[in-house]
């Protein structure tokens, strides 16, 4: 065919640069619709309710979101590879119970050992998920749905269905403060920053995006699909383990049902933050916005006395809205 010196390398070049077209404006509005609606909600709250926009309330929100932040970070890794992890809620319960069992006030094991064992339990389930998905080629939805039940069952067995209390003071101190910062919040900040560095600045991170973006192309480029898939589920389990231990310390007991339903909050945070469920698209910064939005929303709805039942409905609709926006945006790419 002819020289295409007139055809630029970029598709859709018909759209002028400079001024955004009405279509682009529409897409922009849609993409940030959720953020805009929530911002309006926050402004209304801040203006109408004195107790919302206070330093202590902000601190409360951060402590409340810390556990979900860890789970959402794990979910981000998993979803970026095109997978899903439904087991993290149950892992939270299991890790909490295991940590609590070994953190009894009897002094048999040190607090550090208890924490390590609790986190190890979560990591083990995560690694099991990863092995199923990466090596046995079980679809992620099924593998992690199965392990959601397995982990939950293990937690009930280990705790005999009872809350494990009588925890050592050092263990309980995990919900306290370090350098004036609440420990859960400090852990959250460290984890999020590390996750950002890994995803945006390392080879491993680049490979995660490649695996989710086009597994075939990644494989041809020499990316090992199996190890990367195995790794992200293990990371997700590990972070859920940390969240479980922290929540047990906050609840002053290991409770098998402590994380029930948390997997949905984690996935919601990632999706609201723009992590595409199709894989390969999104950034941890988005996830941070996602879990902050959910946290602020929970807190705000509580402050204005919306029944928790209605809160569920609101949250569900927001998740659907986020996925809808994602799919509309994808359609626009064709």
């Amino acid at each position, binding site marked *: *065919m002819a020289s295409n010196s007139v055809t630029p*390398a970029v*598709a859709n070049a*018909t759209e002028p640069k400079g001024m955004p077209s009405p279509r682009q404006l529409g897409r922009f509005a849609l993409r940030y619709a959720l953020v805009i609606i929530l911002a309006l909600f926050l402004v209304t709250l801040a203006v109408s309710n004195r107790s919302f926009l206070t330093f202590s309330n902000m601190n409360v929100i951060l402590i409340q979101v810390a556990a979900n932040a860890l789970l959402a970070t794990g979910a981000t890794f998993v979803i970026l590879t095109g997978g899903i992890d439904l087991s993290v809620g149950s892992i939270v319960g299991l890790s909490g119970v295991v940590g609590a069992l070994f953190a009894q006030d009897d002094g048999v094991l040190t607090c550090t050992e208890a924490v390590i064992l609790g986190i190890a339990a979560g990591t083990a389930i995560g690694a099991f998920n990863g092995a199923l998905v990466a090596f046995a080629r079980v679809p992620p939805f099924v593998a992690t749905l199965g392990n959601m039940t397995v982990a939950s069952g293990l937690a009930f067995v280990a705790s005999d269905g009872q809350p494990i209390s009588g925890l050592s003071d050092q263990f309980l101190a995990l919900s306290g403060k370090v350098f004036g910062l609440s420990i859960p919040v400090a852990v959250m900040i460290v984890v999020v920053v590390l996750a950002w560095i890994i995803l945006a600045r390392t080879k491993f991170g*680049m490979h995660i995006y490649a695996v989710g973006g086009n597994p075939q192309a990644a494989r041809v*480029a020499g990316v090992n699909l199996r190890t990367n898939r195995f790794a992200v589920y293990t990371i997700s389990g590990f972070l859920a383990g940390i969240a479980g231990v922290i929540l047990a310390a906050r609840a002053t007991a290991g409770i098998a049902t402590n994380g029930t339903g948390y997997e949905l909050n984690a996935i919601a945070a990632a999706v609201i933050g723009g992590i595409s469920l199709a894989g390969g698209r999104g950034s941890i910064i988005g996830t941070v916005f996602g879990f902050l939005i959910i946290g602020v929303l929970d807190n705000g709805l509580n402050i204005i006395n919306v029944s928790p039942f209605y809160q569920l409905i609101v949250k569900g609709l927001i998740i659907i809205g986020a996925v809808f926006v994602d799919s509309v945006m994808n359609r626009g*790419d064709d």
Partner: protein
Amino acid sequence: MSASAVADKPQPAGDIAVDCSSLTKSYEGVPVLRGISARFMRGTVNVLAGENGAGKSTLFKIISGQVTPDSGHLALFGDDVRRFDARHAQGLGVSIIPQELAPIPDMKVWQNLMIGREKSGFGLLRRKQMIEEAVAMMEGVGLSVDPSLPMKRLNVATTQMIEILKATSRQAKIILMDEPTSSLSGREVEQLFRVIRRLQADGVCILYTSHRMEEIEAISDTVAIMRDGAIIRHAPTSTLTERAIIADMVGREITELFPDRQITESDKPVLEVSNLAVKGYKSLVSFTVKAGEILGLGGLIGAGRSEMLEAIYGMRRATGSLRLDGRDLPLGHMKESIKRGIAMVPEDRKISGILTSLSILDNITLPHLNSFVTPGGLLENGKRRAQALDVLKRTKVAYATLGQKVGHLSGGNQQKVALARWLVTGTPRLLILDEPTRGIDVGARSELYRLINDLAAQGVAVLLASSDMPELINLSHRVLVIREGAIMGELKKNELEQEAILRLAMGRSSNGKQ
């Protein structure tokens, strides 16, 4: 009869990059390779010519370790390959560029180029260095693309070039290219050739498949002609003529690629398009297609022809009005379009033309299932089979059984199936063809041309979008040239020339004036 100067001349063993001896492979008892023996040297470009289904892809898969041969030997650089494994082959320096593009659409251009070859320091990526390297790679072939653009913003041709760059820069010693130029335009083919010549100078052995004759002459040192799973001739390109290559490929001389146009068109318009505005394009388009007429749509890749055809078929949103056989046709109602007799063979048959995982029978009868339903709501399979057999015979599809999955057919036969499905319940009123012969070999091509021509002679109105100039010029009765979704001009049969079409396609007037 692999008697050839190249193969017979004694060569130092170290210079033999690929040495195949008596390779055979069968799938489900059907032999695909029947004893391939050939040697390909370092620093040479070798074209594998052959119709689709001749066994080229299978040979590529064996060399790249994706498929284990049933018998025979393969040696790479003198070492016998015992384990057929893709990673192992990659380690030996074999790189394959598949026909289907494999970009990572959401990642940036530089990331796409550098994936698998990351540069890190203290565990962190050296982004700047990687971006510079990516830019250098692109500049080496005269490609100037912003490395930070997401891959999905590039057009098909640029994407293809990036993919080729990616594969060739991976320390490859043997590069297999499966029709690398099928979506490239002239200038980009030149860029690709520059890459190939550089690789050749570095001692890389290149195996290349192509259906474009002019490319074979321009780039290759040797031609290996494959037919029915065997290499029937392997000779230096300079000793072969185009005619001889084609004759060997098909096993007969194709006297006429294009059938004589039997123009039997009436004045009766079949399709009347007025003020059609396709979503995403600004222009209003109006034209008519008469019964028995083949109306060609010319233009460059990305000119908006496919979008226009999809709008007429009802697949894509548009405004304006359509009339079929003098009656209004609602826009955006594919079901109605099918019912009224519009048939569509879309551009990318694997995406929207056929269902590769379904059988031939199911593919052919899918659009017409309503006409095979008994009053009880069940499918009349006997009638379905009878009608399918009938159209398969008419369209000369080469297949084993009706239950065979369409994905197992060669590209040419897949395309025939995509067309055959519209002939089940009689002939359509309007046949829409979008790049009907892309990636299809000469033999199947000429049969498709004959079929299209016959349909037109029977009074079917045909809309043919094609980027293949000879095809457009020799099949069409009239051509509309499209650019950015607008009709730039109309060329009558006696005005059909490549230059005139190109001038219009590039935004000039047909007679060379501005």
